[in-house]
């Protein structure tokens, strides 16, 4: 049927049009674009680190006492450190560590926090209250303190730092999802799906969950920055990545004793942290603008 075929093609055009619209709204803010640019740049640097770093071998336990404490120059854009390693190379490899820690921590937090929030929000019973009270207890303790306690118990290394941060991070997602579920479960379509025989699991994971992704995605983006910040904090305190791992926090900790004379040791990793966190925050704000409008359109119906 030719008519149906044209309709389908028309529909495809409509879908593409929606993406263009979303992109248009995102683009409306220069800051969002800057954020996206920073993140793409960081992700690219992390992915291609061995190719673009001028001295890939400097990322690990490399020693060259003939080139220690070189200030930033054409040969070493960010200078060299106390044992002659190129700081630019180490900062580029550090992006790998920071981004992967952020992703892993948030993936764990998401896997634990979202189902718990869904269950606590949809079901009513003592176990729902229990989930939320445990969540409240976790939220009452500052995450850096909790993470410090956990890493102090475990051995201080990168994996344990990730576990510790994830351990403190999931309650935020439980809280967020819980609140969203409470409002979405009042919608008529939830009752409608129950009236045609959907099971409670189906209603929560298939009907409600897809309706609450947008605030979760926005929070994930914003949290990438914060998780990186907490991880660098732990590494700075010696509870995260251990030397010679080129984690930004560790690099600052190592370089701080040479301040202020050899300032480039600590400054460039610090700048990397600052720029990355800023990038995720700008991106998150931009995404929120895009999603807010879409939610209004969905809820409004027409």
């Amino acid at each position, binding site marked *: 049927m030719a008519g149906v075929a044209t309709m389908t093609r028309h529909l495809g055009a409509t879908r593409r049009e929606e993406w263009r619209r979303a992109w248009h709204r995102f683009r409306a803010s220069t800051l969002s674009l800057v954020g996206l640019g920073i993140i793409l740049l960081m992700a690219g640097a992390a992915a291609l680190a061995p190719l673009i770093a001028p001295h890939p071998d400097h990322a690990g336990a490399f020693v060259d006492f003939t080139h220690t404490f070189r200030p930033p120059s054409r040969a070493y854009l960010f200078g060299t450190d106390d044992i002659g390693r190129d700081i630019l190379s180490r900062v580029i490899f550090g992006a790998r560590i920071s981004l992967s820690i952020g992703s892993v921590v948030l993936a764990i937090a998401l896997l634990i926090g979202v189902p718990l929030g869904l269950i606590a929000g949809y079901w009513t019973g003592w176990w729902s209250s229990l989930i939320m009270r445990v969540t409240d207890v976790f939220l009452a303790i500052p995450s850096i303190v909790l993470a410090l306690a956990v890493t102090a118990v475990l051995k201080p290394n990168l994996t344990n730092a990730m576990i510790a941060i994830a351990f403190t991070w999931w309650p935020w997602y439980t809280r967020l999802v819980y609140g969203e579920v409470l409002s979405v479960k009042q919608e008529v379509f939830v009752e*409608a799906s129950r*009236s045609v025989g959907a099971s409670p699991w189906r209603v929560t994971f298939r009907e409600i969950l897809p309706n609450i992704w947008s605030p979760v995605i926005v929070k994930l983006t914003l949290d990438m920055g914060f998780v990186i910040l907490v991880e660098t904090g732990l590494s700075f305190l010696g509870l995260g990545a251990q030397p010679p791992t080129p984690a930004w926090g560790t690099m600052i900790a190592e370089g701080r004793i040479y301040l202020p004379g050899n300032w480039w040791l600590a400054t460039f990793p610090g700048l990397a942290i600052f720029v990355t966190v800023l990038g995720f925050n700008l991106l998150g704000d931009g995404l929120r603008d895009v999603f807010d409008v879409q939610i209004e359109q*969905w809820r409004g119906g027409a």
Partner: protein
Amino acid sequence: MRPVEPLLAVRNLTIDFHLFEGRAQVINGIDLEIARGESVALVGETGCGKSVTAKAILGLLPPNAEVVSGRILFAGRDLLTLSPGEFQQLRGRRIAMIFQDPSTALNPVFTVGEQLQDVLLQRDGGGRTWSRTRARRAARGRCVEMLRVVRLPDPEGSLARYPAELSGGMRQRVLIALALIQNPELVIADEPGTALDVSIQDQILLELRDLVRTRGTSMLYITHNLGVARMVSDRIYVMYAGEIAEIAPTQRLFTGQLHPYAQGLLAAIPRLTGTIGEGIEGRIPDYVTPPPACRFEPRCPFRMAVCREVRPLLIEAEPDRSVACHLHPGPKT
């Protein structure tokens, strides 16, 4: 009693709501029967307990509701004794519901096709004999067929559309398709089409009426609109303040009403000729402290002393026609 066992028989159903103000006796001992293939309308003003009755039949009462007594017999089984899991198996497959507001009753983030397929595949999905993709393909065919049955324009293309891309009337048709796709024996329609404009409402209701008649589906229409009830139903239950006031075959209710409330309802219908209807004095009573005997007594133009002392019971005043009013003591006395 009818000779054939009815598909649905509600017997002496009483439901209380636990409220801050106390116990609200929202449903006060109602009886309701629907035969196979019959269309019944439950008519009453807003807040008289029509929707609560429907939700009780579907097992979707809010947590603060309590079924005090009564039975809901569906095909011979008492629904009130079912476990939540058994009830869920029944919903959609044997009893389904068409919702009032088509703009909120569809999930905004899924396409029409996904929602229809979900309803079909939630049970036999991932079955052992069929592969999942084959099941999906078969389901797709059935969805298109169903959308064609409810006369949605361009059923193939509509599968890929989101609810926000459809008009109100189209969404109402999708909701009807969702309720009918599993071929339930009983469909409850809660104020169908009220959110649509009148011409489309009439068109969809007439199509729905013909559709369920040809499929042999039993219907329970919940409505405050007597015009709608007249158009779609075989029999009408007039409900007032959680009680059944009058039961009558549709045509006979419109030629003469026995209960004063039913008379008032009909008088309140605006007509093209003459003045706007009179309406009924007063409001629906408070359910926490209802009138002691006849709940309509405070508003009734014919109230008598007995109405405040003895609750009028539903009695057969004429063949196939019952009323709960002291004005009609029944043929026996």
